[in-house]
């Protein structure tokens, strides 16, 4: 009898630890993810004091079909982005995986370089290169002796170009990692049974790559549905949904903004659910240790040097944005106007940073807010990842979805949700109005980057053997001691990698910032926009260079010291 009671008691006690740990996690997720989403929904079904779906009716059938057009444009643009990204990313992965030729490693490194450009900075650099008065545009105009620019970066082609440049990396990385996991002897077996190279590709390689192709397609589709910076700077009159939300808010039509947000959310959430279902469905992970993919050395000299030439061309195109930003950051204010190329270079922009507090302020703001958000992400991330991986409780799947939600939702929507939740005194705002204060931005960064820390930390926890914790407890350590002394040190690298990623992403954040910033906490990205408006390209570039350097540093540290593989940062 006594033993039985003891077992039951211990069981309860164990569950109590789970619940105590779960409490803060649920508080955060309900208060800052679920409640704001709910508030947006509530606002979208209230019209002139009545409840109802009147606004949705207007969205789909109103006198101006601009909203529906924006939705359609978003989908259209996203589909094209998927196709173009795949067309670049997949062959690139296949070539690098199959063939060896001089400079391959260098080209492989260059292939992921678009990742170090924050979205706004990337678009900006494309404007500097291919915009109406961009360097490349002017060069072509000059060379051909034209009186008007031969092309300008805008509208659908412009957005597509930027999307392809930034998003082909998703295809490249997922397919590369799938190819690495693919056991070469499976393809050899097919050859041995008499299949020619094309049959092997069609019947073996392609089907085995399908899951990763679908995953990458979904990722690109979602990212491009949510894309804000590219349309913001390049769309011209072209309407896309994420941008419409911003305009509705600017025009004070908050209710339409709510409706648009809900519709964009529905699209994103269905994609999130579809992606989870797809990932769980089949997994051909059959690779094992010791089997390494062989690369065929390219023997034919023509093919070899052609590959090298194409590689060099690729590096040039891929790195042009980075070099342009660096170059322009040395151009002092007002010295490059009508000339084809900038003529004066100096360190002025960098010196101003030290001297002029108003130049330094946005950087301080960004670093400070990103640090606050990341600290929150770390605490929350460890707790949540631990619960998700090592504890059993009901509704775990739901919690998992809630955690992924802030990253799956477009940043525009996350920001709108926060506005609807916290532009009035709310319980979760501790009775204060948060919108218009300093705190709303760190809060937005924190929410949006929750998955960035939870995911790598969960992966680290998943690799830990349960018996480690049990062994520590068996040796007499309490739960907290076991966690602190045994578990935490082992998951630290994964956790730190996630935190670093969250930090740099927060430092470069633009989309939710543009909806939520105040003049006192304006972050770097907003200041870049200000400088662009004043045509001070030099200072804008200098800001961009700081961001790139920071991101490059973090990637280097994660890769070198924390053992993070590129593809895991997606």
């Amino acid at each position, binding site marked *: 009898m006594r033993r039985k009671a003891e077992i039951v008691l211990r069981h309860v006690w164990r569950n109590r630890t789970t619940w105590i740990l779960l409490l803060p996690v649920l508080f955060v997720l309900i208060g800052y993810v679920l409640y704001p989403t709910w508030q947006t929904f509530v606002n979208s079904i209230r019209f002139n004091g009545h409840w109802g779906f009147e606004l949705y009716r207007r969205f789909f059938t109103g006198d101006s079909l601009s909203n529906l057009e924006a939705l359609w444009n978003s989908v259209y643009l996203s589909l094209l982005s998927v196709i173009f990204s795949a067309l670049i990313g997949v062959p690139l992965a296949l070539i690098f995986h199959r063939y060896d030729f001089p400079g391959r490693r260098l080209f492989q490194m260059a292939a992921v370089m678009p990742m170090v450009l924050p979205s706004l900075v990337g678009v900006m650099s494309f404007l500097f290169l291919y915009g109406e008065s961009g360097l490349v545009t002017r060069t072509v105009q000059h060379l051909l002796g034209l009186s008007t620019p031969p092309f300008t970066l805008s509208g659908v082609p412009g957005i597509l170009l930027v999307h392809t440049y930034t998003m082909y990396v998703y295809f490249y990385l997922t397919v590369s990692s799938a190819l690495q996991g693919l056991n070469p002897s499976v393809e*050899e077996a*097919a050859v041995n*049974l008499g299949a020619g190279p094309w049959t092997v590709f069609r019947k073996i390689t392609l089907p085995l790559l399908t899951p990763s192709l679908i995953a990458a397609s979904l990722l690109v589709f979602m990212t491009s549905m949510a894309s804000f910076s590219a349309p913001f700077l390049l769309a011209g009159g072209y309407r896309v949904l994420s941008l419409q939300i911003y305009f509705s808010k600017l025009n004070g039509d908050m209710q339409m903004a709510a409706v648009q947000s809900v519709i964009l959310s529905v699209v994103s959430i269905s994609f999130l659910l579809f992606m989870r279902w797809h990932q769980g469905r089949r997994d051909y992970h059959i690779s*094992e240790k010791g089997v390494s993919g062989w690369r065929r050395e390219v023997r034919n000299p023509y093919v070899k040097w052609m590959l090298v030439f194409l590689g060099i061309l690729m590096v040039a195109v891929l790195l042009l944005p980075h070099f342009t930003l660096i170059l322009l950051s040395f151009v002092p204010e007002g010295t490059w106007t009508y000339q084809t190329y900038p003529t004066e270079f100096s360190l002025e922009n960098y010196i101003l940073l030290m001297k002029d507090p108003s130049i330094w302020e946005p950087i301080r703001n960004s670093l400070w807010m990103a640090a606050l958000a990341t600290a929150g992400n770390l605490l929350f991330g460890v707790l949540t990842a631990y619960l998700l991986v090592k504890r059993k409780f009901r509704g775990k799947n739901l919690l998992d979805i809630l955690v992924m939600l802030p990253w799956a939702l477009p940043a525009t929507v996350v920001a709108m949700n926060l506005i609807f939740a916290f532009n009035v005194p709310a319980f979760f705002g501790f009775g204060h109005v948060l919108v218009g204060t300093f705190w709303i931005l760190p809060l937005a960064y924190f929410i949006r980057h929750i998955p960035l820390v939870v995911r790598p930390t969960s992966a680290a926890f998943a690799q830990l053997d349960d018996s480690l914790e049990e062994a520590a407890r068996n040796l007499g350590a309490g739960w907290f001691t076991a966690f602190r002394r045994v578990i935490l040190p082992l998951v630290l690298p994964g956790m730190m990698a996630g935190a670093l990623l969250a930090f740099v992403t927060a430092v470069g954040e633009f989309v939710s910032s543009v909806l939520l910033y105040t003049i006192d906490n304006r972050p770097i990205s907003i200041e870049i926009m200000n400088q662009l408006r004043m045509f001070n390209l030099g200072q804008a570039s200098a800001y961009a260079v700081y961001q790139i350097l920071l991101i490059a540093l973090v990637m280097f540290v994660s890769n070198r010291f924390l053992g993070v593989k590129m593809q895991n940062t997606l």
Partner: protein
Amino acid sequence: MSSVRFEAITKRFQDVIGVANLNLEIRNGEFFTLLGPSGCGKTTTLRMIAGFTFPSEGRIFLGEREITSVPPHKRNTGMVFQNYALFPHMTVMENVAFGLTVRKLSKPERTKRVKDILQRVRLEGFEDRKISELSGGQQQRVALARALVIRPSILLLDEPLSNLDARLREEMRSEILALHRSFGITTVYVTHDQTEALTMSDRIAVFQRGTCQQVGTPEEIYQSPKNAFVASFVGETNLLPATVLKREGDSVLVCAASALFEVPVTAVEGEAAVGETMWLSIRPEAVEIVTGPGSNTISVTTELIQFMGFSIHCTAKAEDGTRLRSLILNHRFQGMKEGEALFFHFPAERLRLFAQRGEEE
């Protein structure tokens, strides 16, 4: 069905030699095993037959046809990979039918042959299973069926049993042999397991560091190893340094561990010049325990007696400290004790004399 002939084949990988100057003939219908320690070039040899690796020098023939540079999908060899390499996105049926599909066989013909072969490997009823729903042994059988169904002219097996547990390994061993017998197909089998090689093969080629050391039937390899490496890699052996004293008639007199031994010339590797240091080898089970001195006999003190059930392992020390092992079957156990003084008799016909020690791998 076909024979295979290697003519002066060498395969270099950048600076590593995979296989060096290999001359080998695998006969029609034979079960031929490539045996050797890890990295000795077995897989490389096998992959050259399949066409995944092209030799740097030399020529390969499949029957009368030279295949040195024929691409792998035109060779009609059936290969079973170490990890099976089953197509994970296809069912058992689709896996087995793959080779027939690329050969453009008609659907009814395909189905008939697949059904037939699945029955042969005792997998009827598994047609629609996914690969991930099979046990290790079943996957092994699918791999075999997939290779056999195309009626290859030669069957290649690269350590096919190494992923299975001991019990299953034994079962699959006899199953593979049974299939070999019933199909009569020339089979090349790669393994580093000497028991597997000895029990299954018609003939064995022993490899070391890319060089083929000896080719022969299991008995030949075991009873008359050509050099010290073969002797110590296939089975166990006592190996002791011996100085050649003189050659008389058809035997050589050597001194090893301060005792004198006569070795028949037929068992001597190389010239055996007087004064040369060579290596005397005798298998533990050939050592006889006797009570008194005599010819080819050495006096020892037992050190360790291990009772193994069906046999007894006895480790003993000669007067100069050389350790010797002997293995006796249980029914001749006469209650030896550790520390006892005994005599080991080395029957002349079981002795071998090698030129080199043959480094251990």
